[in-house]
C-alpha cells in the first residue's frame, strides 16, 4: 500500500471507528443509567403492644417488597427479607417445619434466615430495626426517583 493510500484509509476509517465507539458508549449509557443511592428512611412499623413474643407480621417495604417482622424477645425484633438470596424468588415460612422454603430451587433457611440446605449463597437479607419506647422503627430504602 502506498503512503498516500494508507493515510487516505486512515482518515476514512479512524473517524468511522471512533464514531462507532462513541455512539455505542452513548447508547449503552442511555440504556443503563446509574441508579443513584436511594435515601434510607426510618419508618414506624408497629407497636410492641400489637405483637407478642414469637409472633410475626408480613409487611411491605417502600418498594412494595414483602418482608417479615418477627418479635424475638421482650425488646427484640428482627426484620427479614423474604426474597431468596439465590435467584430472587419469594421464600415461604413453613410453620410445621420451622423453616423458610424457596419453591424455585429448594433452598432452605432456618428461622434466623441462615442457609440450611440447597443452593442459596448467603443468609436472607435483614433490615435494621430500632425500638424507642414501645414503638418499633425500621430502616428502609426509599423508592428510586
Amino acid at each position, binding site marked *: 500500500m502506498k503512503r498516500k493510500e494508507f493515510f487516505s484509509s486512515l482518515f476514512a476509517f479512524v473517524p468511522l471507528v471512533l464514531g462507532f465507539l462513541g455512539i455505542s458508549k452513548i447508547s449503552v449509557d442511555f*440504556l*443503563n443509567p446509574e*441508579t443513584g443511592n436511594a435515601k434510607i428512611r426510618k419508618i414506624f412499623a408497629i407497636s410492641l403492644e400489637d405483637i407478642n413474643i414469637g409472633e410475626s407480621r408480613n409487611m*411491605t417495604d417502600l*418498594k*412494595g*417488597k*414483602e418482608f417479615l417482622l418477627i418479635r424475638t424477645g421482650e425488646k427484640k425484633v428482627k426484620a427479614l427479607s423474604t426474597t431468596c438470596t*439465590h*435467584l*430472587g*424468588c*419469594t421464600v*415461604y415460612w413453613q410453620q410445621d417445619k420451622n423453616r423458610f422454603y*424457596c*419453591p*424455585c*430451587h*429448594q433452598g432452605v433457611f432456618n428461622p434466623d434466615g441462615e442457609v440450611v440446605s*440447597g*443452593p*442459596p*449463597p448467603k443468609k436472607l437479607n435483614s433490615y435494621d430495626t430500632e425500638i424507642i419506647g414501645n414503638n418499633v422503627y425500621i430502616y428502609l430504602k426509599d423508592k*428510586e426517583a
Partner: protein
Amino acid sequence: MGLAKWFKTSFPVDNEALVEMSSEPIPNHLKKWWWALGGTPLYMFIVQVITGLLLVFYYEPNVEEAYNSISRITNELPYGWLIRSIHKWSANIMIASVILHMMRVFFTQTYRKPRELNWMFGVTLFLLTLIFGFSGYSLIYEQMSYWAMKVGTEIAGATPFIGDWMASFIKGGEDIGQHTLTRMHIFHVMILPLAMVALIGLHVYLIRALGVSDLRFKDEERVEKKTFPFWPDHATTELVMVALIMFVLIALALLFPVHMGERANPNVTPIHIKPEWYFYPVFRWLKLTNLFWGVLGPMIFIGILYLWPFIDRFFEKIAPKKDLAFWIGVIGSLILTGFFFWEIVGH
C-alpha cells in the same frame, strides 16, 4: 412502451440467473422424507412473524395492562385464542426442531471443515431461539412467566464479572418492572427478529456457498448422479413438509389451546414453579449446584457447543477412529434428557 417492457426496464432482473440460483444441486439423501426437516425452524419462524404481527396490534406492553390485553386477545377477540395458540405452539415446535436439527448435524458430524463457522452461526440461532422463547413468555405477565423472568434476570446477574451490568441492562433498573417489560417487548418484536433474519440469511447463504454435505447410507445403491435439482424436485418435497407441519401445528393449537394463568404477583412465588420445558435441564442443574456453578455450567456447555468442531478435530487427532465425538454426544444427550425427565417428575 408495453407494460412488460417497462417493467423489465425498471426492474432489470436476469431470469436466467434466477433459474440458475434456484437450481442448486441437492444431494440424494435429501430425497428421504426424514432428511427434509431442516427447513422446519424456518417455516415456524415465518408463522411466528405472521401471528406475532397480528398479536402486537392488541398487546399492551405495560405492567398494568399486559395481562389484560392478552386476556382480551385470548377470550374476546375473534380467533384471538387460535392466533395466540398457533404463536405459542409454533414457538415450541421451532425450539424442538432446532434441537433435533442440531443433534442431527452433531451426530452426522457435518460441522466438520469447511462448515465450522456455519455450525457457530447455528449455535447462535439456537441461543436466539431460546431468548425469543424467554422474552415472549415474559410478556404475558402471569405468575409463572413473571417468576421465570425474575429467575432469568437473576441468572444473568450472577454471571461472573459482567453480571451486575447485564442484570441492570435487562431489568432497566434495580428490580423487575415497567422498564423490564418494555425491554423484553423491544427485544421480542424488534431486535431479535432482525438478528434472526440476518443470521438465518448467513446460515442459508453458507449452506448454499459450501453446498449441502453428501451423506451415504449402507443400504444405498451406488448411482451415477449423486444430486438432484432444488427446483422443482426438492421444493415440492419441502412444500409437502410445510403442509404436514402446518397440519400438526393447527391440530396442536386446536386440541391444546393456550389459556391464561394467574396474574403476576411480585410478592408471591408460586409454590409449584416450573419454567418452559426447554429450560428444564438448566432449572434442574440450578437445584443441584451452588450459584457459581449453576451459572457457569450452562456457560461452559454453550462454550463447548461453539467450539465443538475444533474440539472434535483435536479428539480425532489424539484418538483417531475411536468415535469419541459420538460417545460424548450420546453421554451429553443422555444427561440432558435425564435432567429433563427428572425435572418433570421431581419437585
